[in-house]
């Protein structure tokens, strides 16, 4: 029981991170119907930006941990958002209106470019970080096993929850959110009622990238290591989460992220850790066989 609870805690924390990245995939897919394969790299860049910011802040002698984290978060989100905007402007906007495959290939290209740039600039070696937030709560002690919920896990869960609520509110209640939903449903018609579609799409990329940067900071703090290749792995997982939850659906992305996180945690806890990816993808395949639109996805309506 204690062991089960511990895996649950670990799975939720991991799932929250996947969920945050998955939102970026799902929003972009929703609005322009393409898979932004460079999104995983934006997450990786967010992790590096966090690392740089944390080291800079330490060098400046700021020792207040909440302040340091808040500054890091702002720094990482702002610069990652800039990356997100630039990627869209350079690699996707010129291809809008071309056939579906072209931006996909452009996205893969962008992903390779970003990965190699970071590899060149930061080196290929794994970058370590001293733990910033230590300690935690003991939830339960039993069978000689201690269930711990670290402060960092609490921060990850609360921050994710807050961001999820905030973004859902934004999409449903603000002018920008309405424009995004309108663009998602009918891009041409959105332009005809006076929405600047290009700017709305840019805003979507900026929002997705900022969320990925938050996930980047969390991973940097959680695992304490960063390298130029983490974007690929996390990207594939988050993409899987988005598809599992129903691509295009915001709550679906979060649900998918949590499920993938839990599956991974439980599989590594009870079976062999090497096969945790197999378990996650197997569940994906099973879900897609019985619910091709994902768990919370709406069936695609053919547009005439």
């Amino acid at each position, binding site marked *: 029981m204690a062991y089960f609870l511990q895996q649950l805690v670990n799975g939720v924390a991991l799932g929250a991170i996947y969920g945050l990245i998955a939102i970026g995939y799902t929003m972009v897919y929703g609005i322009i119907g393409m898979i932004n394969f460079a999104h995983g790299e934006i997450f990786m860049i967010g992790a590096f930006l966090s690392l740089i910011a944390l080291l800079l802040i330490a060098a400046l002698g700021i020792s207040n941990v909440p302040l340091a984290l808040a500054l890091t978060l702002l720094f990482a989100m702002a610069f990652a958002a800039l990356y997100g905007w630039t990627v869209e402007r350079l690699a996707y906007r010129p291809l809008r209106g071309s056939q579906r495959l072209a931006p996909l290939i452009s996205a893969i290209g962008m992903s390779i470019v970003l990965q190699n740039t970071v590899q060149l600039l930061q080196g290929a070696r794994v970058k370590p970080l001293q733990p910033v937030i230590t300690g935690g709560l003991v939830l339960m002690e039993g069978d000689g096993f201690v269930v711990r919920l670290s402060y960092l896990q609490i921060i990850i869960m609360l921050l994710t929850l807050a961001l999820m609520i905030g973004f859902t509110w934004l999409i449903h209640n*603000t*002018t920008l959110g*309405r*424009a995004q939903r*309108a663009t998602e*449903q009918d891009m*041409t018609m959105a332009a005809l*009622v006076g929405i*600047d579609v290009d700017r709305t799409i840019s805003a979507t990329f900026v929002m997705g990238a900022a969320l990925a940067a938050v996930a980047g900071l969390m991973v940097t703090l959680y695992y304490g290591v960063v390298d130029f290749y983490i974007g690929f792995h996390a990207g594939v997982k988050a993409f899987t989460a988005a598809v599992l939850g129903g691509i295009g659906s915001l709550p679906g992305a979060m649900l998918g992220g949590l499920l993938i996180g839990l599956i991974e945690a439980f599989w590594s806890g009870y079976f062999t850790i090497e096969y945790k990816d197999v378990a996650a993808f197997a569940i994906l395949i099973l879900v897609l066989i019985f619910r091709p639109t994902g768990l919370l996805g*709406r069936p695609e309506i053919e547009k005439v």
Partner: protein
Amino acid sequence: MSAPLLTVEHLSMRFGGLVAVGDLSFTAPSRAITAVIGPNGAGKTTVFNCLTGFYRPSVGRLTLAHAGQTHFLERMEGFDIARKARVARTFQNIRLFPNMTALENLIVAQHDTLMRASLWSIGGLFGLAGYRQAERQAVDRARHWLDQAELLEFADVEAGALPYGAQRKLEIARALCTQPVLLCLDEPAAGLNPRESADLNRLLLAIRDAEGIGILLIEHDMSVVMGISDHIVVLDYGQKIAEGPPAAIRADASVIRAYLGEPEDSA
């Protein structure tokens, strides 16, 4: 008749070797309903597509003049035609935002005003007074048009779930929420029953008289066209074959020929 709102001069649209519209000129004033009619394939929708930025005309000038400003539509992007020149349109096949409520459909049509008032959404987050006022106005305008179109009861229903006739009217209401000076309606009466199309006639006349905007109407339903048009332009194979008030068009020999064909004994 006052100075024309819309002036179409020598408009031609070619697709490869096909001339969809050839050297078409006509004008449409404000406070009037100008109908564009003709058999299927005559090029009516192509004219609308040129006016609203879907197509770039091969040749021709499309001038929209109002409030002392002149816009050349053939040079403008689609969303600029909507927000600067203030031309709105509806479609033969209805294009609402199906997963938004009727009210949201009308509010999203006032996006440009709200976006400015909310300082690109940032001010809106902090409840800026100017934004709250703009939002109230937007909701009021939306409610006004829902009321005019007799759709108030459907305000919170998803647009995709509305009955067909209601969707048609909602599309017109949405176009009006963009506060257009020229409203282009592509077969608004298609698929409506006689009672619904009588309702539509009343709505269109009310819009013309109350808002003082120009309406450009493509329609096959002659009870609508003859009942409410002030001026009719007839197209056949992309060419203008007649132009005039309803009574003159009804009697025009070339129009009858285009719709019914040549009488056998005249050949």
